[in-house]
């Protein structure tokens, strides 16, 4: 698509009559916009429940990179319409453009902005100048240069890199998603850039240094599930970004250079800082606690603080004393470093919590000593979010705590609390919106501590539930059906029956009916992960009723290619499909040809795909990048079998940074 260039200064005759709105809003432009995959598939507000991260990096809605022109469509603005004239350019009106820009400032949702940019050229220009936040859901869908050329005044950029299955070791190391070319392009283009949020990207220490150097007004850095950097890079950011407000490091893999451990906390400015949020629980190396205490003391705006597990309860107390205004607190290990019998008393710790009147979110508890749990009672009633998912608690240990959490909206927990613990949650937390139950023993043959009983209890007590992630070993259709009826507001339903191909443990039926009920009854559902023994019937349900589903994860499921066909044909809003270990062949893949441009990506591994099928797709769809990823760099085994397929729409064409084990078709 050619970037519209400005011709406003050239041939505009002076017009005596009052300016008219250019009549270029023609049918052609409208048809182009509705056919373009971007505006029809761009989602509404933020993809809140997309992943396991604690807080999503972006509060913004999705921006499709093809917002200006869409996938394969060539969008040409029709400049010849209107004004009664034929064949004459409608001169852009400078006054109108200024007005437009002022109005468009108020548009924040990317979907609205994408639509506005398609109206006509001057709207396109005005929108491009006024867009402040750019969201790119797949960093390879558009080139950095192109983004920098289009948008004039960005303040905030959100980039996502690797496909989600990279979290489960399915994407080999070195696959890509490097942020370097982006930082290199954004630096010169947006000296006023304030905010960068990255998810699943590789960020080196040099990249961090370049960010610190390029953006003198930099305020917010949020890295979620990233890798490639160490405390060296953090030190540079701390030192050079004098206006830093947010440094959120969430579930990153931070290289620990054992020899070169840098005291990055000491590098923050010595005067009062503007820090509002400091999250570093994933930086697992020891740090300078005294420096942190001093930093907290001179950061009056600090509201969110999450420390790593090298912090004892004694140290927590000191932090809380320095920052009584905290709202979000990550508590580190939550145990004493003293010998048993010595150390802080529970009462003393409770006093600290009582003094922290603003706490609404608690997390951490990485190595919790349950005796200290009562210390948090003073804040329980106000808590809206509680993360116990690293605390191996029993039901008996959980109950006295959860009993007080009457306002809880988000709860993450380990399955060690069992069905009984979940029942206690259901009894108290009637306002619960999000529940995640993680397995302590994440293996297929584990005993599994929660079951259909817990799910049923939750569904009965937490009627307002919107999002659930539930790992278990035993499940029944009846419990899932009950949840579908009791919790009609569900937007995210992710059930993981860890043993592969497990049926309803009571009736021995496949789990088709359970998931069928979910898609049928939960009319707001946008995200679904299925598991257990599933036949094509389940996918027939999903295709028939899952009209709002944007993200679908499938594993060890389905009988035949019909399943894929049901999904592609039925789920009209589908954007992200991830499939593993299911009996789908090239035929199933090809049934999606007409839909791939409407999707952000398709991932399939360990199915029955062959090179021929993948090449077929690549040949027929010019604006798709089709990647075949091999596990080993030597080609052992048949070259025809495709183990991992990752395809995505892109305006940038095949990338030039692919490693040898990736074949771009």
């Amino acid at each position, binding site marked *: 698509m050619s970037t519209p260039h400005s011709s406003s200064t050239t041939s505009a005759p002076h017009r005596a009559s009052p300016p008219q709105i250019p009549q270029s809003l023609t049918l052609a432009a409208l048809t182009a916009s509705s056919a373009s995959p971007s505006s029809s598939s761009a989602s509404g507000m933020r993809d809140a429940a997309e992943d396991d991260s604690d807080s999503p990096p972006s509060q913004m809605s999705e921006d499709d990179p093809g917002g200006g022109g869409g996938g394969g469509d060539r969008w040409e603005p029709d400049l010849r319409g209107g004004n009664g004239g034929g064949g004459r350019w409608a001169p852009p009106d400078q006054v109108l453009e200024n007005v437009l820009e002022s109005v468009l400032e108020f548009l924040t949702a990317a979907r609205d902005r994408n639509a506005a940019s398609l109206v006509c050229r001057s709207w396109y220009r005005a929108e491009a100048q006024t867009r402040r936040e750019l969201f790119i859901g797949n960093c390879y869908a558009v080139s950095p240069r192109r983004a920098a050329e289009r948008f004039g005044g960005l303040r905030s950029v959100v980039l996502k890199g690797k496909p989600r299955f990279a979290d*489960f070791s*399915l994407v080999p190391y070195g696959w890509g998603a490097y942020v370097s070319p982006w930082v290199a392009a954004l630096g010169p283009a947006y000296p006023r850039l304030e905010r960068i949020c990255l998810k699943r990207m590789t960020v080196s220490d040099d990249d961090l240094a370049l960010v610190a150097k390029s953006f003198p007004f930099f305020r917010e850095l949020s890295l979620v599930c990233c890798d490639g950097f160490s405390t060296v890079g953090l030190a540079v950011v701390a030192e050079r970004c004098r206006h830093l407000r947010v440094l959120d490091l969430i579930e990153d893999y931070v290289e620990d250079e054992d020899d070169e451990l840098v005291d990055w906390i000491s590098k923050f400015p010595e005067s009062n800082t503007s820090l509002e949020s400091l999250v570093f629980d994933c930086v697992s190396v020891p740090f300078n606690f005294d420096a942190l205490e001093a930093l907290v003391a001179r950061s009056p705006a600090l509201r969110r603080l999450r420390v790593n*597990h090298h912090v004892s309860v004694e140290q927590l107390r000191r932090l809380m004393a320095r920052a009584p205004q905290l709202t979000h607190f990550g508590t580190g290990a939550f145990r004493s470093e003293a010998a048993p019998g010595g150390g802080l008393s529970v009462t003393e710790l409770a006093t600290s919590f009582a003094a922290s009147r603003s706490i609404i979110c608690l997390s951490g508890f*990485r190595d919790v000593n349950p005796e200290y749990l009562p210390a948090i009672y003073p804040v329980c009633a106000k808590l809206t979010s509680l993360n116990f998912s690293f605390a191996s608690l029993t039901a008996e240990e959980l109950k006295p705590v959860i009993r007080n959490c009457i306002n809880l909206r988000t709860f993450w927990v380990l399955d060690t609390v069992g069905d009984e613990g979940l029942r206690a949650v259901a009894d108290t937390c009637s306002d619960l919106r999000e529940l995640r139950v993680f397995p302590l*023993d994440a*293996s*297929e043959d584990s005993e599994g*501590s929660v079951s259909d009983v817990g799910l049923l209890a939750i569904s009965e007590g937490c009627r307002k539930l919107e999002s659930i992630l539930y790992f278990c070993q035993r499940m029944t259709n009846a419990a899932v059906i009950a949840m579908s009826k009791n919790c009609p507001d569900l937007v995210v339903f992710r059930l993981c029956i860890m043993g592969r191909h497990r049926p309803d443990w009571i009736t021995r039926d496949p789990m088709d009916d359970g998931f069928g009920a979910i898609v049928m009854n939960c009319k707001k559902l946008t995200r679904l992960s299925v598991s257990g023994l599933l036949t094509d019937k389940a996918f027939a349900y999903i295709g028939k009723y899952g009209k709002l589903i944007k993200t679908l994860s499938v*594993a060890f499921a389905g009988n035949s290619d019909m399943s894929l066909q049901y999904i592609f044909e039925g789920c009209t809003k589908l954007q992200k499909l991830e499939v593993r*270990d299911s009996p789908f062949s090239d035929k199933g893949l090809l049934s999606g040809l007409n839909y791939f441009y409407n999707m952000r990506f398709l991932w399939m591994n360990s199915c029955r795909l062959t090179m021929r099928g993948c090449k077929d797709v690549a040949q027929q769809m010019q604006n798709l990048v089709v990647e075949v990823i091999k596990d080993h760099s030597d080609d052992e085994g048949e070259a025809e079998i495709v183990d991992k397929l990752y395809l995505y729409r892109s305006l940038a064409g095949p990338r030039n940074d692919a490693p040898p084990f990736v074949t771009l078709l």
Partner: protein
Amino acid sequence: MEVAAASYVADDVDSCLKATELRLGLPGTEETPAAALPTPPSTPRGKKRDGNNTGAEEAAKTAPPAAKAQVVGWPPVRSYRKSCFQQSSSAAKSKPAAPEEKAPAPAPAPAAAAAGGNALFVKVSMDGAPYLRKVDLKMYKGYRELREALEAMFLCFSGGADAPAVNPSDFAVTYEDKDGDLMLVGDVPFDMFISTCKRLRIMKGSEARGLGSVKNN
């Protein structure tokens, strides 16, 4: 595997058959069938089967684990989360016993060898594997345990789930020491090795040939 030939010379056929029977264990040891058969824990982490807990763990030490193929990335729990439990499993836990108390959270080595003090995680790479792993050297008492743990970890890369146990002479375990030199594992006392080892590397195939099949101490 040793053929216990010498000590079983006898007249009747049965004894001769027994003599040529391949068994696990050193020559001269008479093992009960239950222990002789590798009782595979389903995962290298050692699931406890009823009434056979110690047997399972013992067998895990003497036989390659897992008849059932381990699938990569399933269940879909982030490695970040899994690794957090590995770190905390080495610390002493004051847990009142839950009704179904089981072995502490996943660890690549027998979790019973809970170490006090700091963990010593080093990277382990295997030529040809798509990703690296990390092991805590303090979890092992000696080279044999370390080797078995490495075998268990990288089994899936050695030619498929159903492949027979990896031929030891096909790979060599090397490490990078403080000076940056590539050394063969096994030459120095284990404690000394732990203090100098910076990372491990499993070399496959032709590169390993020259180093020979230094195996099983």
